């Protein structure tokens, strides 16, 4: 076993919102984005410790002990964050150890990522992951930068690369009313994704304020009707598998 440690914000034994089935989730500390709509802003700084919040240096052995306890009840393990790929060496070791353990090898391993890493990172993770879920904050790079502090070129490249490798499980679109929900922009997004895979799993997630930091002007939660019209744009473009959340 490799002696690498990870900087872990938290773990959750049971989650039904981080991939297929019930999943053990490791939230890794540290993110290369600084999204205005982040639900876990305490997990953004890539260092420890912080006032009132203490990410832990965790060994793979410690995490495996926790995962073994949950193993009978889960479909797999998801690494989330923060941004999981920021600790790709640790992640590779953790998932490699799960795959190598006869009692855990049946579990699937997923990464929940903002997609901001290079193809080499995905190629390193490819042998140990079953799929990746990528957030696409905005197809327009300027708006993307306003929302996250970074352009979207790496994100689009990751989506495209993972699709080619057969590792793209789903793409998630977090919609903020008046920010990234322009119908024309969504049509372009849908067409681009359809060209990669017209049957792609797409989650359309309406922004919700819980966990987020104050922002001026205030961020607005889209109405159910607005989310449905966004979904309709995607449905018109291709036979995507769409879920509205």
């Amino acid at each position: 076993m490799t002696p690498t440690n990870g900087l872990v914000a938290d773990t959750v034994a049971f989650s039904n919102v981080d991939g297929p089935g019930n999943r053990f989730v490791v939230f890794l500390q540290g993110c290369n984005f600084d999204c205005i709509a982040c639900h876990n802003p305490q997990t953004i700084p890539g260092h420890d410790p912080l006032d009132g919040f203490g990410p832990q240096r965790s060994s793979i052995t410690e995490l495996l002990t926790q995962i073994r306890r949950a193993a009978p009840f889960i479909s797999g393990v998801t690494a989330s964050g923060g941004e999981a790929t920021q600790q790709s060496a640790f992640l590779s070791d953790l998932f490699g150890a799960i795959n190598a353990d006869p009692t855990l090898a049946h579990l699937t391993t997923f990464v929940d990522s903002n997609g901001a890493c290079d193809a080499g990172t995905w190629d390193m993770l490819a042998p140990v992951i079953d799929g990746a879920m990528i957030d696409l904050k905005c197809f327009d790079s300027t708006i993307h930068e306003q929302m996250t502090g970074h352009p979207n070129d790496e994100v689009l490249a990751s989506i495209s690369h993972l699709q080619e490798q057969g590792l793209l499980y789903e793409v998630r679109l977090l919609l903020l009313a008046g920010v990234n929900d322009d119908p024309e922009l969504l049509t372009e997004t849908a067409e681009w994704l359809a060209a990669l895979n017209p049957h792609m799993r797409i989650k359309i997630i309406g922004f919700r304020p819980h966990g987020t930091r104050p922002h001026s002007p205030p961020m607005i939660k889209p109405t159910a009707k607005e989310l449905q019209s966004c979904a309709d744009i995607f449905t018109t473009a291709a036979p995507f598998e769409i879920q509205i959340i």
Partner: protein
Amino acid sequence: MFEGHAPYTARYILPDYEKAIHQGLAFLEMPPPNDLDDALSFLQIMYTYVPSVTSYPVYLGDLDKVLEPFVTDAISDEELDRKLRRFWIGIDRMLPDAFVHVDLGPHDSRITRSIFRVERSLRQAVPNITLKVDPSITPDDLIEDGVRTVFETAKPHFVNHPMMVGDHGEQYAAVSCYNSLKIGGGAHTLVRMNLKEVALRHDGTAEEFLTTTLPHYVELTAELTEARIRSLVEDQHFYDTHWLAAEGLIDIDLFSAMFGIFGLAECVNLLQAYEGNPESQYGHDAAADQLSVRIVERVAELVAARPMPYCEGGGGRCFLHSQSGIDLDDEVTAGTRIPVGTEPDMLQHIAICAPHHHLFPAGISDIFHVDETAVRNPQAVVDIIRGAFTSGMRDFTFNLDNNEFVRITGYLVRKSDLAAIAEAKTVRHTSDHLAAGSEDAYHLTQRAVKRISCRERDPH
């Protein structure tokens, strides 16, 4: 629901409906049915003649096995749904009592699939439903169909079929409030022992409780049980005279009695306080959790050592049952559950509950509360069900936050009916009134939602 010392009918009766359908009913002058319509009509009539403590039948049969022979290829799914829908409305309106119970599984069948579709569309409190699950037989997508039904109606309960077969053989069913008993038999009576009250009457260490106080109260409970059984069998001659017995649809040799316990949580906490560890609470401290298992093991040992007449269905002994409580219980927790609102996270909750389950052949029903995100990911709940059975759970179900239905102890009530009772309006089900009493005492609608999903976190 009180039986007194001289009950005139067995408390829970599980007629052999498969046999009835096969041989017809002499007493009711009904020949064996020839097709599905006849079979549904046959059952509907027969149900009204099956006695119980509530005066409504607590068991309506393993309906997939009973009805599947009548489901021919000529009957389309739509037609099947229409027929079962009429039958289902009839059950809820004619047997308006949420202890009325149907069993399904562990094999897949068109009847089971249709019943789940009808359930989801009608959203009735009656009948209560159990899905028997054998991890090696029951397909994931049938369990998932059950889970989708839970999201709509808080039914079915999921039962560990191999564990039940180990205790009762293949011919068993879960009836009423999750009482598992033999088909063709049942329970003469149920006496409940309040472990909290036993602990309040104890003065001394936990060890002394197990060796002196507990055996004394187990024996008192057994004496009452025996008095009721002797009255039912020897004085009332129930089994010599009832038509179900005369036609071989029940057999006294398949009956036993149920020894119910409840208030384990308070019992453990009181004993821990006597030991000088008042902080050690059931569900939250390993020492308390270990003591709880020792108490239940001790009760099981004492019950197994106490011969009981006319209980051949249980090998001459009572069946131990974790009793889910009644509306009159005050400040005491149902069965062996962790008090409502203080449940730990689900993985821990299961780890604490599971070691008790094998000790209760006559049933134990734990309830886990899940939040509405699970609706989009039913496979997550299927995963938990499979894991729970691997961990030795016998039976349990889920309550979905924001569901119209509330599972009170083992039975269901609609929130709209509870609201109607609060406004002194008339409601239809007898059990609705029991539910209103239990809600006042237990605050069951405040069951803790646990972190099945917790992606978003407040750092403070």
